[in-house]
């Protein structure tokens, strides 16, 4: 059946809401046709992953919407850009790319987007509620919104996230619809596992790798300490696979029971995950052995939450690294502002602490030295950084990372 537009959709398409909205609706309609949607639905928020500069076409698109008098129709947050606007001089970029990359961030703000510049919009005041229809870009944000919050989005990306924001509409298909949120593949954890950060990353890596395009359900996952462990799980699963929604039985909001997660139907496949599977997945993140000399630590991919900061800061004081190895922590500007208002960061630079806002150390040139090993507690960073910025990576939990910074080489305790 063909796509049916309501009167308001049609009026947007016909240009009655301005040239920018008409263009956005035209693109959205073509996309909706291509995915087989029969109608559009209202969204309550959008998150735009369009602020990293990849070439002129991306900037030209946003500029045309600005010229067309465009404004986003719903509250719209922005993902990271190529720059840390809070810490000028942090990013080293070829001169020719700098002006358009800065302009790209600014042009989005001119469309009425919020200058959040974070991959963790769920940590901001724009966090959606359970059941809300939203159009979000960025893989970790998408999987978190769907799985941990129970909001509803598909994997939106290039151009389309912004077209949804400009029109306040999204195609009614995929994970917007209840029937498509049903679990399809079951992962059973064979061993009783402690709720360590690494376990959540490791299971996430395995689930992402083996789920394909099926919604995974995980049974036997330990109760997480906080939502940051689910953030790490989702980010890992969306790194090794295309996971946009997972259900953790007894943990996430659409999976009080196994039956609820599968909508009463049997799983199409059951996969057992052992302690050895998790260890293997985590080992694959490190390209260097223990003892390798360290040049930096990078935490906060996805962006560090306030709670994570409150775990890190006492750890830094206790372990007290000498400060010769930079400890980069990527975080949202609102979180950083809150910490500064609380006075929480005073004196911490002596331990090497280097907060990074608005961007992330694996998408842009921040790291001062690339020749050595960078240690991270992020499965996502460990996966992408070698290809993106050419570093060697050691994975470990947060405390291992700080102990390694103090030791000057990779030190790891238990997995």
């Amino acid at each position, binding site marked *: 059946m063909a796509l049916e537009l309501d009167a308001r959709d049609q009026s947007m398409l016909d240009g009655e809401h301005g040239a920018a909205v008409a*263009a956005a609706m035209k693109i959205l309609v*073509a996309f909706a*046709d*291509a995915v087989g949607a029969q109608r559009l639905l209202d969204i309550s928020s959008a998150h735009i992953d369009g602020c990293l500069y*990849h*070439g002129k*076409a991306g900037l030209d698109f946003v500029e045309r919407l600005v010229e067309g008098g465009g404004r986003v129709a719903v509250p719209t947050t922005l993902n990271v850009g190529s720059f840390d606007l809070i810490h000028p001089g942090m990013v080293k970029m070829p001169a020719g790319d700098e002006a358009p990359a800065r302009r790209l961030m600014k042009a989005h703000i001119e469309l009425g987007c919020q200058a959040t510049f974070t991959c963790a919009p769920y940590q901001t005041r724009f966090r959606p509620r359970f059941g809300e229809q939203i159009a979000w870009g960025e893989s970790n944000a998408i999987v978190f919104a769907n799985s941990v919050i129970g909001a509803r989005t598909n994997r939106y*990306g*290039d*151009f389309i996230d912004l077209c949804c924001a400009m029109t306040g509409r999204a195609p009614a298909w995929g994970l917007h619809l209840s029937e498509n949120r049903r679990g399809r593949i079951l992962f059973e954890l064979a061993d009783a596992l402690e709720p360590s950060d690494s376990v959540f990353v490791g299971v996430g890596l395995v689930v992402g790798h083996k789920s394909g395009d099926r919604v995974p359900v995980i049974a036997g996952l330990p109760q997480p300490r906080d939502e940051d462990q689910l953030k790490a799980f989702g980010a890992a699963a969306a790194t090794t696979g295309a996971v946009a929604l997972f259900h953790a039985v007894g943990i996430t909001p659409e999976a009080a029971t196994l039956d609820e997660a599968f909508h009463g139907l049997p799983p199409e496949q059951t996969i057992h995950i052992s302690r050895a599977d998790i260890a293997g997945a985590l080992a694959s993140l490190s390209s260097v052995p223990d003892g390798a000399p360290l040049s930096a630590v990078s935490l906060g991919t996805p962006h560090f939450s306030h709670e994570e900061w409150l775990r890190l800061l006492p750890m830094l004081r206790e372990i007290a690294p000498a400060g010769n190895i930079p400890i980069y922590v990527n975080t949202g500007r609102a979180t950083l502002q809150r910490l500064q208002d609380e006075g929480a960061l005073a004196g911490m630079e002596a331990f090497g602490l280097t907060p990074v806002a608005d961007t992330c150390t694996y998408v842009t040139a921040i790291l001062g030295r690339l020749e050595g090993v960078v240690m991270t507690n992020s499965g996502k960073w460990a996966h992408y950084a070698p290809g993106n910025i050419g570093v060697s990576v050691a994975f470990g939990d947060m405390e291992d990372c700080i102990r390694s910074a103090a030791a000057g080489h990779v030190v790891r305790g238990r997995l």
Partner: protein
Amino acid sequence: MKRFATRTGVFQLAGEAQGQALVFSQALSFWGGIDAGTGDIIDHSHPGLGLNVAGKVLVMPSGRGSSSSSSVLAEAIRCGTAPAGIIIERLDPILAVGAIVAEFLYAIRIPLVVCDIAGIVSGDPISIRSNGAGQAVVTLPAA
């Protein structure tokens, strides 16, 4: 005298094109697969590695991979390194968005057609046009 065969397809984005077919049985992701500056195929895991898509009619089962392919296709169209047209067997929202955005920005339209690709061979002269009723007509050498 040369003989030609035609087949009809569905336009994801209507338009006209002609060029040599470049046929792949394996989907190619524009993101990470094509250098938008040159049109060269750069995906080391793809059989087309080292070939160039500029001005060709790209024929493959489907698009593939990240939504960033929309940006790469739009950028390739801007740079003049994109295929003249694309024929795929399955609707592809990512390629459709890239092509539509490029048309919006640069008034360059490359047709995106969904039809049967069996029997199309690389090097075949292919043309894409509309039959006047909104359907795509693909003309290729008779088998």
